[in-house]
């Protein structure tokens, strides 16, 4: 913007009627052109007489102060000293100010304290947002992020329930068995992707994600090794989960909460709670030990098996 243009929009500018991009251009011109700045100040005072925003102590426009003082007035000097912090005063004005400072202890003290301000500012405490702070903002705007429960609920609610439910079961299967069952490869891949995405969302640190997945995969592998030669058996087991959809759903809810809280012990205990009665929870077996055989019989009592796994170590690995 050039001076002529600035003068043309000046009266609208000081009345606050100017809009972008003209407003921005006017601001930029005013910043670099002292004549126009002076003109704006006069126009501004003519229109507003100083302040537009109500304050408890109305500001006295500097220039009108100047008009009323000879430069010897303390409040005038104080303001000029404050201004000098950002931009050195003109030589002549500075000489007048120095003159006053030489004979005025109170203005000298004010200058000292004004120069000390940056050191004071540096003492102001700096806050760091914690995770709950961010969490609350996200909850209050986009809402809580979907957990297992939401995903499972969505799956179940839709009409293609049979397939969806199978996917949900596969989710459980993958959680428990890892990806060791070839028959379920496609579904398992999709499910594992879902699980992985969910885990990454609910468990913020990657390390914990891998931690919990390691535990689950290990558990899964041990059961998978055991069940692999008995595919029909596995199918029956998964069907069992499927028919217990309601149970699984509420387990999902608890599992989601456990994951959110990072409580893997509780998660494993929930796993046991829902899968144990279905005979789907792994038998106690040390890692690397030979797979057990002959326990797939549905009629076999399960109580013992259910309570003894997993070991405490598995949960905290």
């Amino acid at each position: 913007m050039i001076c002529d243009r600035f003068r043309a929009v000046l009266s609208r500018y000081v009345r606050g009627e100017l809009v972008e991009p003209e407003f921005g251009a006017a601001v930029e011109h005013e910043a670099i052109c002292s004549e126009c700045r002076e003109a704006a100040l006069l126009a501004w005072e003519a229109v507003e007489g100083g302040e537009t925003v109500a304050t408890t102590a109305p500001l006295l426009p500097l220039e009108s102060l100047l008009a009323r003082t000879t430069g010897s007035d303390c409040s005038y000097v104080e303001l000029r000293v404050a201004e000098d912090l950002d931009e050195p005063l003109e030589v002549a004005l500075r000489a007048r100010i120095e003159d006053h400072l030489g004979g005025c202890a109170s203005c000298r003290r004010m200058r000292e304290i004004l120069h000390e301000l940056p050191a004071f500012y540096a003492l102001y405490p700096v806050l760091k947002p914690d995770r709950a702070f961010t969490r609350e903002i996200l909850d209050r705007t986009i809402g809580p992020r979907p957990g297992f429960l939401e995903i499972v609920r969505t799956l179940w609610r839709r009409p293609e329930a049979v397939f969806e439910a199978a996917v949900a079961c596969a989710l459980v299967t993958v959680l428990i068995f890892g990806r060791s069952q070839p028959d379920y490869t496609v579904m398992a891949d999709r499910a594992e992707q879902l699980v992985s995405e969910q885990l990454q969302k609910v468990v913020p640190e990657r390390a914990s994600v891998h931690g919990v997945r390691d535990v689950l995969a290990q558990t899964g592998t041990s059961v998978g090794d055991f069940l692999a030669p008995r595919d029909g058996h596995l199918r029956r087991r998964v069907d069992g989960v499927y028919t217990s959809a309601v149970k699984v759903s509420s387990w999902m809810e608890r599992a989601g909460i456990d994951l959110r809280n990072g409580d893997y012990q509780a998660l494993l205990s929930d796993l046991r709670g829902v899968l144990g009665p279905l005979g789907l929870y792994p038998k106690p077996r040390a890692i690397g030990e030979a797979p057990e055989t002959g326990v797939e019989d549905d009629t076999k009592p399960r109580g013992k098996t259910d309570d003894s796994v997993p070991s405490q170590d598995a949960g905290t690995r």
Partner: protein
Amino acid sequence: MKSDEELFEQCRLRDTGAWETLVQRHQVRMLNLAYQFCGNKEEARDLAQDIFIRLYHSMEQYQPGRPFKTWLNSLARNLCIDNYRKRKKDRRLVDKPVDEFYDLPSAESPTDHKLEKRQRREILMRALETLGPASRDAIVMKDFQNMSLEEMSRLLGLPVGTVKSRISRARVDLGKAILKLEGIKSWSEAAHDL
């Protein structure tokens, strides 16, 4: 890295990931801006959260192409200043202390550097509390947030000259308040020495 404007545009298309990135990118500055305005941690937390919630609901009014930072700053500043005005009014009834404020005078050794720092911080926070809204605003924006005169001029809708004199006035007011509080301190220390 995506610009704020790009992210905000994605937020308008309900991209929750973009929103989360935007929150994480600006939360430190907003939290501290709020704290510089109100001097109380709990209140700053609420205030900063309100800024983001207001920002989230302001998406529809945002004109694409406008600088995002200006948009956020003006929204944040409006909320902070409203809060400050309200609080000043409330404080006439209930004198709510600012953070880290203990009794200004202390009988402990004045050579203790840490103690002196703490006292100076308390003096600063107390002094800031005495400022009127326009002065507190000027100090926070210029001296704490390091905004340029041009940015402030746009934000406040005031000519640069007016912004300048407002800043000078605010610093003088702050200086006076500090001197007064330091006076109370040294007087009390002198009393201790007797």
